[in-house]
């Protein structure tokens, strides 16, 4: 079956060992986690994981069900790129003297929509947000022209475009049903 990149979004309790529970399911199915991003969600006490992985549609569906089945997981779902607005952030550290010798800094900044975060005697730190191809594009161009001293790219973060039930509404529904019982 054809493989493509899926983005898995997981809402969980904020307990010790949640990442282990999630990664176990990927491990069992032999799926590589391509990117991972974890942070508190908009709802207090609930953490959000965004994971990307290469998979076929059948497997990803089963993986997400098996993650969702864990009792500490509140909700898990998956999307393809077309259904999402997504972003990554990358930081690039280059030597100041090399950077100044580039000559076409303005052009570069405009082309890639770069932000400059820091300039010291020794180094310049650039920031670029965008899709993987875009952050990689800047990396490639910089590498041709100078030495990149350090490079770091974040995991993907994503927001769903489709009209799906909000987690807070879902939790409210569960809560109100519980109060009826």
């Amino acid at each position: 079956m054809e493989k493509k990149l899926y983005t898995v979004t997981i809402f969980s309790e904020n307990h010790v060992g949640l990442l282990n529970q999630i990664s176990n399911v990927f491990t069992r199915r032999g799926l590589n986690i391509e990117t991972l991003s974890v942070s508190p969600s908009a709802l207090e006490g609930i953490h959000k994981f965004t994971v990307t992985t290469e998979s076929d549609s059948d497997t990803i569906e089963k993986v997400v069900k098996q993650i969702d089945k864990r009792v500490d997981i509140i909700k898990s779902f998956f999307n393809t790129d077309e259904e999402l607005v997504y972003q990554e952030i990358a930081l690039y550290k280059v030597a100041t003297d090399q950077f100044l010798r580039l000559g076409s800094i303005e052009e570069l900044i405009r082309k890639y929509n770069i932000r400059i975060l820091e300039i010291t005697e020794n180094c310049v730190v650039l920031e670029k947000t965008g899709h993987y191809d875009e952050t990689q594009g800047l990396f490639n161009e910089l590498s041709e022209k100078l030495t990149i001293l350090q490079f770091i790219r974040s995991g993907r973060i994503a927001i769903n475009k489709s009209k799906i039930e909000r987690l807070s509404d879902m939790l409210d529904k569960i809560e109100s049903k519980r109060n009826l019982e």
Partner: protein
Amino acid sequence: MKGSYILMESLRAEGVDTIFGYPGGTIIPVFDALYDYLDKFNYTLMRHEQGVVHAAQGYARASGKPGVCIVTSGPGATNVITGIGDAMIDSTPLIVITGQVGTSALGTDAFQEIDMVGITQPISKWAYQIRSANEISIALARAFYIATTGRPGPVVLDFTKNAQVENAEFFHKKCTYYRGYIPSPDINQRQIETAAEIINNAKKPLAIVGQGVVLGHAEDELLKFLTKADIPAASTLLGLSAMPSDFRLNKGFVGMYGNMAPNIKTNECDVLIAIGMRFDDRVTGNVNTYAKQAKIVHLDIDISEIDKNIKSTAKILGNAKETIPALTEKINSAQHKEWVDSFSVYEDTEYKKVIQRELNSQDGKINMGEVVRKVSDATNHNAILVTDVGQNQMAAVRYFQYKQTRSVITSGGLGTMGFGLPAAIGAKIGMPNRTVCMFAGDGGFQMTIQELGTILQSQIGVKMILLNNNYLGMVRQLQELFYNERYSSTLMVNPNFNQIADAYQIRNRHVTHHEELDEAIQDMLSDDKPYLLVVDVEEYGLIYPMTPAGETITNILMPKG
């Protein structure tokens, strides 16, 4: 109140009356508290932590109540891992309490420290570390809720030493809710109607019954459902005894060593109704050729089982106790006489070629099947059958017969050798008024043979039938059939099992000829005390019919001749 006493009170509040355990350094405070509660709990000291967890499984499977284990940290904890995995895959509710070093020593490779939560997360329903006495009451209530609701499973509570000795307030509030955990999905009427329509249009329906029916206490509902639409049904290994053996529509046992008729009919039916089962590969054989002609209606409480192995045409989510009657209401009364009768040609073939020969050995050697059937007959088919794993297991479940539900306790998903003896101890403790017959081979019996010590100390009236062929029989069978009779690592030189039983003061008998069998079984069943019946069986016995692993389920091997 001290943490260890909060644990005792919490267990009491959850209705626990039986505990299996084995003490050790980090759990001593809990055993110290238990000393004050010995009149409140029926506590059994096993001989190995593997025995502890399998006994708790046997107890849970027989009684329907969660099995409670208490063991120490480190090796005590790792010794229960197999049982936790077994309980997870066989949906058995367990509360496994393991000792843990104090929180200040966590992560330091302290003596007998092991990352129990990390190890058991992938193989348990829930694993939680109790780090302070304040958490005990809530953690226990949550543990029981999670272990026993929805699709049951094992819960691990890793109990740090400081939490056992600190003081906190005990309170009990039954847990009925855990955010994000939906134990049993609500019944969806549209799902019921869609499924009912498919079943109403069926000419050749076949139901396959799994343990979900037993776990949901839906045995009566199942029989009403099958009877109303005249649907023949067969069981998975763990679904056995959900229907009585003599129920008109009970067509036996499906899968690798199952009955011919339901396996063949799986690939002839037009609608396959899977009830509380998970299409395990031992049931399906090759999934690419499994029931391709049929519409699949899948009833399960666990949404992650739907479409996991076999794509369903229609699904019904929920507890079988509710979904089966809801479905029964919507289906039409029907007759499928011709279809039901069509099973008999394969039943006759299997009887002539396999069963009759197994039960009436001609060459003087005793077959496993005949021992099993004689024991089943002698208990009037009312006993609880506990098996080990291997040929003994397949012979036992094929030839034992059932009148009551919860009468088969066997390691299905994990296939754990050594399960039988401790599980039988647990089953007898859970159901003291029922006869418990445990069948094991010489291999599996020796994996947990130390539990004879538990039987001696606690006088557990388990009837043990050792089917001794001096081989690891199931592997030997596969070597005979598929590895050119190269019996690598399967021949066993065995001790005198009767002398071992004598040493444990267990009444015993050794049978080598058919003529002695009936009388020996009568002797075994003459009281409610422990008994070991050692039967020398055909060394080269084979279990048939057999569908080799991964083959189309209808590619059934039969004995030669």
